[in-house]
């Protein structure tokens, strides 16, 4: 008792443990670690950036130095060119490195090829920044790994109990059933260029579909990269006019970025059935608004069950919730006795899937 009184209260707390906010906190550029003087997924060019994965709202060009998985670096290079950063360094999942006063390690996030969660440790506490993640099986991405931590920073893209992603293989069966029923029409599958497109194609292959899959030009480089990493995608053909046998791709499956469907590009196809592979397709009105005829609920983000299960699995006593529907996940944490608050990071798309 007497000894405790000898120390001022603040100093006492400092010695016992560091507060999580001292280890990581938000700045306009993104999530910042003062001990290591680095940002995680900064939205503006910074001195030192740690990048979780290659989607453009997380991986931006122009940082002085970048630390990321080998695959993420390769994807950034494909997208932004050789000079996407001053210097870059690859880190393997599971490997721990010291940056300034903090220890940092990367762990698979299951989101897209090369995606990782980033664990930051110092002063006896560990914070895991999930980036984007999913728990569903995906042959094009390493499985999510649970990293026990004190604070878990989770994404919340699908942070509402209404989001329940069905088994992706079942969704692909619906696509194939439709293609069999409407052989005179082209099935146009909207899928984002990094991750979703390759997953859809791979799911088609796993379902036994062996016809060529026709792809929009925006997908070419990334598909080739996935294939060079040993992910089998089968025969891919450009969806160009000179490649159309009957002239209009009737009966074929074409994969392209969703934005291209509203474009004049889409006019070359025979009475297309517009499909869209996204977790948003769970909600009928979203499908209707976009003019989607065949919604495919395939997501590279976790659904509500995956998000809440993951929070429990990490054993975190505190949860910070970012981009998406924060309020429902914070509410769920409250009900379950876990401290939680929204983390207001700006600059991330909470609609991309």
């Amino acid at each position, binding site marked *: 008792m007497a000894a405790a009184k000898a120390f001022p209260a603040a100093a006492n707390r400092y010695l016992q443990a560091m507060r999580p906010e001292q280890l990581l906190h938000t700045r306009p550029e993104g999530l910042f670690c003062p001990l290591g003087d680095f940002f995680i997924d900064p939205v503006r060019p910074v001195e030192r950036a740690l990048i979780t994965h290659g989607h453009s709202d997380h991986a931006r060009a122009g940082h002085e130095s970048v630390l990321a998985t080998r695959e993420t670096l390769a994807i950034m290079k494909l997208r932004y060119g050789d000079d996407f950063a001053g210097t870059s360094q690859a880190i393997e999942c599971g490997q721990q490195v010291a940056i300034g006063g903090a220890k940092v390690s990367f762990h698979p996030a299951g989101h897209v090829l090369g995606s990782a969660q980033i664990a930051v440790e110092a002063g006896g506490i560990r914070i895991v920044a999930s980036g984007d993640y999913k728990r569903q099986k995906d042959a094009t991405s390493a499985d999510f790994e649970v990293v026990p931590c004190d604070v878990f920073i989770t994404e919340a893209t699908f942070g509402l109990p*209404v989001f329940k992603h069905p088994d992706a293989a079942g969704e692909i069966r619906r696509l194939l059933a439709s293609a069999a029923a409407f052989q005179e029409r082209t099935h146009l599958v909207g899928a984002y260029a990094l991750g979703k497109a390759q997953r859809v194609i791979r799911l088609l292959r796993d379902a036994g579909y062996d016809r060529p899959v026709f792809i929009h030009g925006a997908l070419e480089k990334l598909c080739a990269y996935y294939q060079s990493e040993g992910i089998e995608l089968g025969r891919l053909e450009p969806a160009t006019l000179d490649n159309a046998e009957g002239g209009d791709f009737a009966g074929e499956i074409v994969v392209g970025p969703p934005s291209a469907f509203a474009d004049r590009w889409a006019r070359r196809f025979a009475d297309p059935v517009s499909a869209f592979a996204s977790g948003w397709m769970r*909600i009928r009105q979203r499908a209707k*608004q976009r003019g989607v005829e065949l919604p495919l609920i395939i997501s590279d983000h976790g659904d509500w069950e995956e998000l809440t299960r993951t929070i429990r699995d990490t054993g975190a006593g505190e949860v910070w919730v970012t981009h998406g529907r924060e309020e429902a996940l914070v509410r769920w944490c409250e009900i379950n006795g876990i401290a939680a608050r929204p983390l207001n990071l700006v600059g991330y798309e909470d609609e991309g899937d």
Partner: protein
Amino acid sequence: MQRFAELLDRLVLTASRNAKLKLMTDYLRSTPDPDRGYALAAITGDLSFTGVKPGVLRALGAERIDPVLFAYSYDYVGDLAETLSLVWPGGEENSGGGPPLAQVVDTLAAASRSDAPAILAALLDELDIPARFAVIKLVTGGLRIGVSARLAKQALAGLGDIDVSEIEEIWHGIEAPYEALFAWLEGKGDKPEESAAALFRPVMLAHPLAENDREKLDPADYAAEWKWDGIRVQVTAEAGVRRIYSRTGDDVSGAFPDLVEAVTFDGTIDGELLVGTPPHETGSFSDLQQRLNRKTVSAKMQARYPAFVRCYDLLRAGEEDLRAMPFAQRRERLADFVTGLDASRFDLSPLVTFETFEELESLRQSPPHPVIEGIMLKRWDSTYAAGRPKGPWFKWKRDPFLVDAVLMYAQRGHGKRSSFYSDYTFGVWTGPENAPELVPVGKAYFGFTDDELKQIDKYVRDNTVERFGPVRSVRAEPGHGLVLEVAFEGLNRSTRHKSGVAMRFPRISRLRWDKPAGEADRLETLLALLD
């Protein structure tokens, strides 16, 4: 149940009529009895259960999920049935399984008002998400999948390569799950007998009179009568059963108790349903609309807009079927028949005497009554044949109204048109002459050629002001804008539209690239048409 749920999900998102037909025909062909029959009845609106109110759904949700999370969810989804189907615990393990539709229908049919919530809950536990949604929609009434009963029957006709009118004729005498009907369509049984009284008889329809038709026709062969602007109905009574059918065979008796009351005959009359006091007072289509699509009609409404039928034809009188007789003879019988009826509810459609088509043309251009929308031509010797045979009957409609409007918004189409801005909202000028504003007066998505569609699409892309999802607002100012000549059949008052008017059957008739936007019509021009 899963296949039915999947069918509903596809139908609701499919815009093309042919694709809808194919989805339904495929389903009906590959689904066993009795499930397919119940599915058909659900789509045609011939299934009904003890209603479950939205409050019950909310309560069921609140027992299973935190109310705050439920509120967030409902707020996001916007549809109670869909929200409940999604937040209901479990379900993935039921995927592909669950009870068949027929069993679900039996279970729901046996439910009373008091045990319906518990029965519904037990059922939802057994189903996956799409099936839950389908069941909730079934019990709350109204699938709202954009498929009319007529289209469903059309799909059914596709099973056996027969005309849909044959199905309509027997429809009201048969009940779900229609096993005998399917057997007949698939060539495994006889056509179901007309067993019930007062069945619908398929209606005879007319072709529009084309410019070059007239030269080939002899005026002496044809009777002419006014084409009244109401809704075509069939009033039939037999063995004490009295029914009013729409021209597609939907039973609309419930909305017209005043008219049903006046049916004192045994027979089948084809005519136009109108409101007013015949023969001198005939209300407009706007007036008639007050009486349409209502579940119950107040006494006040019945007194203000009394319904009556202007009789065109007589198909049956007592036991006698008149349909094989020539029109001239049926017409005489009709005139006799109507004499015996309540004159405030039934009157005879007058014939128009004429010698030449030129004479008729001038009558058509200036009809004696505003509720006339053209002229019908019927061969004196024509039998009453179901469907739309070419030759015996023609409709010669009054020329459409035209207005020059300015393109304001464009929306992307569906299917083939999904890369085109093909649905147009247009407006006319209002406000002071020196500072006019556009007010939207209608929406049209046809009437133009494929080439014109491309031109408008390009115009929209080049002149976009703002984007809202699939909609773009287009630059539209007195000095800059695209003028569309819009044709329409009539104008109704509307409290739902800012302009106060709603067009009937609007379509684009011409693109007026040459016309400055500032010279498009003003709202006053339209308002003047209302009276």
